[in-house]
């Protein structure tokens, strides 16, 4: 299958491993990504927090470009980009005034026909293929699925999963052979883009998320957003302070986890770019792999 692709700013820098693992995984799953030509930033939090029109117009430019490329839908792996693109698309269908203004700003006929899909929705469509192609199923690995706030909310914009009890990530994790754990912080905000400006809050929020995953017996947290990853991985050191968990918890992109189950090389998946090393996890998986091999041999 072919799908349009909007990487977003962080996938080329601070979340490089997200793109690396994504490209490796889609290749293995026979999905072609066609990048939107000359895309610009979606505006993220800063646009919608300060200027509503800008927050719709910037994504609209991307949607128009995708339309010109005759793309039916585009994948936005970053949950924030996904949410902004989908929100802009939604606003353009609901608010005639904004739609007219944006149309005149873009200066081009724009049908608003391109759909936006998150990585959770896309990979959920191919869980059967993942299961089939999983040469190294991650049996016994306990994973906490962290959605963050923007993947499934608000309801009308992100309608592909339940806004309170979602399970798209769980179904993908199950397809890799791992076991999703039941835990309570799946939808609690990590602090998003406030990592620089109110770092203390981000650390506070992240600490609660980490602790909950540890209490639930998770060996890793899987995420679908570079901001969530950064807040929980890059800032984990600050969270493991006096009141903190004291235990390191690898933060994995969903594409990395899927990639591991497909037997892809961890270096190819960019796993060495994490701040919290997933080496212990890889050892465990290696252990699982060895046991499987032994099982096959016997």
């Amino acid at each position: 299958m072919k799908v349009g692709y909007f990487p977003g700013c962080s996938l080329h820098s601070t979340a490089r491993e997200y793109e690396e693992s994504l490209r490796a995984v889609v290749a293995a799953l026979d999905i072609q990504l066609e990048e939107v030509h000359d895309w610009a930033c979606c505006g993220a939090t800063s646009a919608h927090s300060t200027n509503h029109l800008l927050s719709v117009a910037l994504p609209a430019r991307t949607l128009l470009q995708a339309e010109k490329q005759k793309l039916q839908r585009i994948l936005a792996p970053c949950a924030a980009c996904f949410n902004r693109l989908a929100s802009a698309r939604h606003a353009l269908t609901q608010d005639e005034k904004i739609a007219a203004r944006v149309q005149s700003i873009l200066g081009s006929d724009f049908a608003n026909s391109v759909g936006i899909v998150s990585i959770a929705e896309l990979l959920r469509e191919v869980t059967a293929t993942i299961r089939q192609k999983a040469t190294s199923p991650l049996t016994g690995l306990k994973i906490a699925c962290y959605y963050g706030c923007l993947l499934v909310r608000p309801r009308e914009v992100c309608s592909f999963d339940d806004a309170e009890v979602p399970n798209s990530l769980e179904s993908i994790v199950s397809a890799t052979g791992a076991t999703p754990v039941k835990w309570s912080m799946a939808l609690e905000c990590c602090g998003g883009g406030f990592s620089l400006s109110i770092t203390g809050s981000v650390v506070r929020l992240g600490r609660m998320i980490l602790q909950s995953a540890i209490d639930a017996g998770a060996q890793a947290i899987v995420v679908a957003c570079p901001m969530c990853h950064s807040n929980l991985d890059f800032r984990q050191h600050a969270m493991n302070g006096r009141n903190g968990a004291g235990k390191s918890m690898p933060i994995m992109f969903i594409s990395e986890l899927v990639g591991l189950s497909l037997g892809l090389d961890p270096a190819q998946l960019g796993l060495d770019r994490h701040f919290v090393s997933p080496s212990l996890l890889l050892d465990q998986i290696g252990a699982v792999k060895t046991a499987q091999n032994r099982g096959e041999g016997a």
Partner: protein
Amino acid sequence: MSRIGVFICHCGENIAGTVDCARVAQALGELPGVVHAIDYKYMCSDPGQSLIKQAIREKHLDGVVVGACSPHMHEKTFRKAAAGAGLNPFLCEMANLREHCSWIHEDREGATEKAIGLGRFIVEKIKFNRPLLPIFIPVEHRALVIGGGIAGIQAALDIADGGHEVVLVEKEPSIGGHMSQLSETFPTLDCSQCILTPRMVEIRQHPRIKLLTYSEVESVEGYIGNFHVKIRKKARSIDDALCNGCGECQKHCPNNKIPSEFDQGLGKRTAIYVPFPQAVPNIPVIDRANCAFFKGRAKGVKKAVCGRCRDTCGRHAINFDEQDSFVTEHVGAIIVATGYQLYSVGKKQDSELLQGYGEYGYGEIPDVIDGLQFERLASASGPTGGKILRPSDQKEPKTVVFLQCIGSRDPAKGIEYCSKICCMYVAKHTMLFHHKVHDGKAIVFYMDIRAGGKGYDEFVRRAIEENHALYLRGRVSRMYRNGDTIRVHGFDTLSGEQMVIDADMVVLASAMRSQPGIASLAQKLSVSYDQHGFINEAHPKLRPVETNTAGVFVAGACQAPRDIPDSVAMASAAASKVLGLFSKELLEREPLIAHVDTARCAACFHCERVCPYGAIIRKEIKDGRGRLIKIAAEVNPGVCQGCGTCQATCPSKSVELDGFTDEQIYAAVNAI
């Protein structure tokens, strides 16, 4: 030549403020056939009515037109006045110069011209009016009450004590409804069963009450005074003439892990069961879906899988071959008292309009229960013998959080109304909890306290001041299982603080909804209901116990959320309407109905097809020797509502609607 009198009412300033009444009277007075035309300040007053009577007598009027308010207001008044002076009341009509004219226009000139036109319309029509005599239909002095909860019980007793027979139909194996599940009732903390069971026994022993339990209404035909109701008596599998209620059969049933409906799923029952010890009638029922014998039979097993109850029964009362049976009851009035069910917070809802509470776990979190379940825990006859023990591990909870407005006042979930009883029963729950768990802590999250009844606000204050319940004002954002407890994230807007509480048990005060299946029952009765399934009353202020279908009345929570005192009062009110209806042998109906000229009728039966009320019957016209000449249409005078659809449809003009014949209508329309 007609001798019509025209009376134009000022209605104070209501009409005269916009319409020049004197001019209207003068203009209408000049019409041929009008011999008397005046205007007066208040026609409906005694002196005003006297003016009409006087004119009828002195001027020998054969028609009266009163130009005033809407016929809905005073048509009866003026017709009665006319009749009082010896004029057939149906020769008196009103022209609506108020709602149709002075109240909707500001231009005096235009309004006056219009008023003259409206008057002329009726004057020309009335020239073709014929005197009509009222129709009398017999009334069957028996009543049907649907629903055996407290409202149905009260209504049945009132009608039966009033001297008439009542058929009480209840779909569960026993009467008693939800009130029988409650532990104590507010504001007195009376034991619910203690005050209810004497009424239930009265029902069973009353000579004029025919009790049909485990039965449902199958179909309804007829009209006020003459309903024919077919009732399905579901097969109990027990012969109630033989059974003496000894209970032996239940002791021997091997299927004893079925979740008990009476205990709201917290307790277990057997396949052959009596729902609770004080059930009326005290005759068991076999739940065939869960009975081993019947499940085996359904699979086609040759040898009976089980038969212990039948073998144990000393009276040989058990009959596995019993089928559903039907009875038809002829009644004159019906009271709907089907009560309520509680809203569920689950993901699957039985209505498209409703959502569940994902933020509260969609009902999957153990130890999060609803109000009725708490009542069963608190009940001495409940699954825990009256001890407050939480369902997951039977431990006594020390911190219990109560949430009000679950579903209610929550348009996002599909229910915008208030369920009225929850503020009171939550206060009651905190008191019951405190009485049983002395060192327990009850915390209530509320938005408002609705305690408007007698002694109600004092009751809530007692919960707070004497029983030390902690009331926090704010809704709860979410809750989840956290180890052994349930973490509740709420807020107290009065202090401005987030409130995070680790509760041992959570009780949700879920919204009151109407019963499942209410839509189909309402359609059988031709009564209307709103988008929530609550039965519609005829008028929210002045006709709260009647419906828009004559002869069908409503009582209790099936019309709107309601507590026990109000349900009882409403039941008695409905009963009084029925007794009023039964105080007559014959029911007088307005004769504005259709009738067919059978000689002209071509028997095409288009009228039958279009009649919304099913009032057309096929009549066989026979000759003197009894041989069939033809079949013609005939109007049933008891059912016809006078809508006129048949008259408009009939190709041969064989149907006439008295009071609105084609002649009258053409004359009126041509006048303007």
